[in-house]
């Protein structure tokens, strides 16, 4: 078998779910400027959202749409601009360009925040308050009717596994317990959109599992979850759709299946192919000979029988066929490595 590596196919790493860079090609109709909260409006919709701090560009231009009821993973390496994007959506920082609509209103709208729960990445609660008092404070800030305070607080504490520690001072909490409490605060008032910024960064495996269960519960209730994370495992477990950002730009977006499932790789043990066989071999993704083995990447699973037939047609003998499914991590690394 020739050691030649094919260059017939473009390095199509970013081509699975193309992300249009131009603002007029964005999906999803939005009543721009609509202050209302039409249930048809996406939970989050951004158009070339940009943030620049003097000479530093934190966000080059993020465009994305998060539908109602979705668990949306916002994925990217450290320093990609994820937290900046979240802060823009919450109105903590002001954009230098583009647009962002959250629950049908401009990002940062004060009244809309009543319908948003937010767990920041770096935060602290008043150390001199107990967990219950922190939750009560947020009930007041949310403007919940007083009869709802006690059940809301009890419910939030139970959901995040802090029922036994409700009267303890937050200052005595571990970082993981503070994160649990932060999640409980974010869930108060049954928000329509819950924004979680690295919600499991301080949690042990049990805590991470619990958070995943909470997110799944939110999805069942129809709550939109915007999950900002760099933990691929978290995304694989709970997210319906994902946006990958790098260096302040969206580089891919779609469902997990779209991101990793459409194409996979197959490794075949092949002998008996004549010389220059590759001139008559094409249409099956990218291929790389590896001794007696042939690695074919970016191929649809349904194409594998056709591939075997083609090899046999070229005089080859196929001794083994080993499908290789691409993980989100493989895909993620591919996306980041793309120019």
């Amino acid at each position, binding site marked *: 078998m020739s050691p030649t590596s094919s260059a017939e196919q473009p390095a199509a790493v970013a081509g699975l779910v193309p992300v249009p860079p131009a603002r007029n090609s964005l999906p999803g109709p939005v009543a721009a400027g609509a202050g209302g909260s039409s249930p048809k409006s996406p939970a989050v919709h951004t158009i070339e959202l940009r943030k620049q*701090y003097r000479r530093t560009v934190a966000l080059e231009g993020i465009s994305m749409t998060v539908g109602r009821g979705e668990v949306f993973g916002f994925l990217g390496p450290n320093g990609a601009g994820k937290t900046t994007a979240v*802060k823009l959506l*919450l*109105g*903590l*920082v*002001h954009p230098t360009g583009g647009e962002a609509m959250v629950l049908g209103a401009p990002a940062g709208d*004060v*009244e809309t*925040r*009543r319908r*948003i729960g*937010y767990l*920041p990445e*770096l*935060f*602290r*609660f*008043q150390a*001199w*308050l107990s967990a219950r008092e922190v939750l009560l*404070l*947020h009930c*007041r*800030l*949310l*403007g919940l009717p007083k009869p709802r305070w006690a059940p809301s607080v009890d419910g939030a504490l139970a959901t995040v596994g802090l029922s036994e520690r409700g009267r303890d001072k937050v200052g005595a909490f571990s970082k993981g317990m503070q994160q649990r409490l*932060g999640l409980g*605060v974010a869930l108060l008032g049954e928000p329509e959109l819950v924004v979680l910024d690295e919600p499991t960064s301080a949690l042990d495996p049990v805590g991470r599992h619990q958070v995943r269960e909470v997110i799944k519960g939110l999805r069942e209730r129809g709550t939109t979850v915007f999950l900002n994370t760099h933990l691929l495992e978290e995304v694989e477990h709970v997210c319906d759709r994902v946006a990958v950002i790098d260096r302040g730009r969206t580089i891919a977006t779609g469902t997990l299946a779209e991101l990793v499932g459409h194409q996979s790789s197959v490794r075949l043990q092949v002998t008996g192919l004549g010389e220059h066989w590759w001139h008559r071999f094409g249409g099956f993704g990218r291929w790389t000979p590896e001794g007696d083995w042939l690695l074919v990447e970016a191929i649809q699973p349904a194409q594998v029988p056709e591939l075997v037939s083609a090899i046999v047609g070229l005089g080859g003998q196929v001794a083994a066929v080993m499908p290789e499914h691409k993980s989100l991590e493989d895909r993620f690394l591919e996306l980041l490595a793309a120019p």
Partner: protein
Amino acid sequence: MTPVLVIARLTVREAVRRKLVAVFLLITVAMVSLSGWGFYRLSHSRTITSGEVRLALPQALILFMFMFSFVVALSASAIASPAVSAEVESGVLQTIVTRPVRRSQVILGKWLGLAFLVAGYSFAVSALEMAVVDRVSGFLPPDPVAAALYLFAEGAVLLTLVLLISTRLSALATGVVGVAFFGSAWLAGVVGALGSTFHISALRTVGSVARYVLPTDGLWHGAIYYLEPSTFIAQRVADVTGSGGNPFFAVTPPSWQYLVWAALWFLAVLGAGLVSFERREL
């Protein structure tokens, strides 16, 4: 309860929980007790005449109240300096401003809570001190309420300035700047008084300008005025050498024009604090 009141209540609660109020109560009781002993010895002294006692009592009370005004001002600076900056750095405020609360409501709530503490201290310490002095020496200033009000106003002015600075600088830098401003304004007041006594217009101008730039010293002189009996003022005015350059003496109360200026100054600085925090990136 409106968000402003929720934040104000939280601010006061923090002061109580962190034992700030308890510490101030203890220190105040100790200082007032000490002053009570001093006033008793002064008013019952056999080495000075009753006329000298009548002159000394108001002056001694003004000195004690100056100490309390210093405590009010430093406390206002100390409790306001971390109010915004430290909570932004720690991430506490990020959990609050993402609620359906305007940032201006957060600042107004903090101001209200801190002002309540400063007012509580100003009125409590004034009432306690004057009651003790009255009890042990029989001397009561002509208008204790007005004096306490001016004491509070002095603290509130500094508190407002420090809160504005706290929206931009770190807690440490804010505290230092607040104290430095307060000290400079007081010193400029002394320089101005010396300028008036020795007819040096440049020094007098320094004092006048400083009172407008930061009205703490001007308001403190309002407190001084209402601690002085009219006979005390008349005697000190008659004794030119005795009152010249004395930073603990006021011949007249602040004019209404000056009070209007102080009110406008307060509103402008508070407004600047609201705008500054509104624009701050968190």
